[in-house]
């Protein structure tokens, strides 16, 4: 159980960080594209 919980928590962390990075990329990427357009 302890192993599974650790594995699940790692998956949660990876999911959250991935989507956080996507959101930040959308924000800064979007401004960068328009600023350099």
């Amino acid at each position, binding site marked *: 159980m302890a192993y599974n919980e650790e594995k699940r928590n790692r998956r949660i962390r990876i999911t*959250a960080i991935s*989507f956080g990075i996507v*959101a930040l990329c959308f924000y800064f990427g979007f401004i960068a594209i*328009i600023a350099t357009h």
Partner: protein
Amino acid sequence: MVDDHHHEEHPGGLMRWITTTNHKDIGTLYLWFALIMFFIGGIMALIIRAELFQPGLQFVEPQFFNSMTTLHALIMIFGAVMPAFTGLANWLLPMMVGAPDMALPRLNNWSFWLLPFAGVMLLATLFMPGGAPAGGWTMYPPLVLQTGAAFPFLIFSVHLLGISSVLGSINIIATIFNMRAPGMTLMKMPLFVWTMMITAYLLIATVPVLAGAVTMLLTDKYFHTSFFSAAGGGDPVMFQHIFWFFGHPEVYILILPAFGVVSQIIPTFARKPLFGYASMVYATASIAFLSFIVWAHHMFTTGMPLAGELFFMFSTMLIAVPTGVKVFNWTATMWKGSMTFETPMLFAIGFLVMFTIGGFSGLMLAIAPADFQYHDTYFVVAHFHYVLVTGSIYSLLAAAYFWLPKWTGNMYNEKLGKLHFWLSTIFVNLTFFPMHFTGLAGMPRRIPDYPMQFAEFNMMSSIGAFGFGLSQLLFVYIVLQTIRGGRKATAQVWEGAEGLEWTLPSPPPYHSFSTPPEVK
């Protein structure tokens, strides 16, 4: 991360609510916040309708009138409807997927507590030099750049609301991906879970775009950039493209969870499984995809090339296909069902009928040449209020009545609930149906005065609006009465209710499923 080794003790009093990481507490906070904002936004709507009761200027200055239309929209969208659905998601997702809590409970607390600060900041602009923002919720430049001291507060408030939404969405996705009970495959999830997941995707993809756009507005005003200033080589119409790239998916962010709610309620009171579950999932995903390629239908009158007008016209009309699939599926679910008409079912059927009216007027607006006549008239106001009030708000009211016995452990007063439904339905139609006529006759939106020819219909709308507003006080009374006591609810509450949340006692324990249930 969520800790499975839970204990029931938690702080009491105010600190319970400030420091809570419990999904039910946070869900409750979201729902109360949304209800308060609903009434604040509602008071603004009533100021608008009081001014429009008769032609001429009666109660407020035109500038303040414009602030009311702007803030009413911002507060209802970002302060009421979106937090209300996040509140529902917080309460229900862990219980529906068989999890003890949301995947990221501390992030959950932060997502919520950003909201009151953003809301207060937005409302504080009413007391600032130059007045509250008055350029419309769409914040089009160059008009919005004329806002006084309130401008940076508007922008920062939108940023905070956006951060809250994105963090909430990350939590929803992390929960659905990682916290489902054994056996709960994606295609076994309740429809509400599906719609919240797809909504979360939409939010993560579009809110940063809005945040980027308003950041560029900020730099245009204070740091001498010219993103949207023609004089400096920029383009104000580009803001409209960026805004509506966010704004149109936002419309679906406000309605997809409503589809999910209705998909839970109709099968329960028809006592039949949802007709076409898989097609409902695919229709939701299709609507989400299409919502990204239709944005310029809000801009038909800006002078787009003909090819652009045609593309956005046809892609918009295409949305009617998956939406039609949903409407027919709900109808087919009711077909030959053993139906009863408790208050949640009444609101769900009200949703089905009146949301469809809003959908049809949306199809009319999608026709580019016709839109040249309808654009910026009360016809548009009628359309989106049918979609958002009798659509989103009705689904929220249906959800409140449906799950209130589960949340509180007490049954609400059915007679009063039905009275609330009928009063709301009569007055909401009295408010918004005449707007179709004033709009088609050419009355523009966002004006405090109008010619005599529109007087009768406006008077009807204003009477309807006050009636609808007062009817919602009855809802607050019913909710408070149910929290205080009443007939005890069983675990299943409704005879036809199916799903994991109905296997828990009413009210459910502080942590929903400490041991994951097995889903067959």
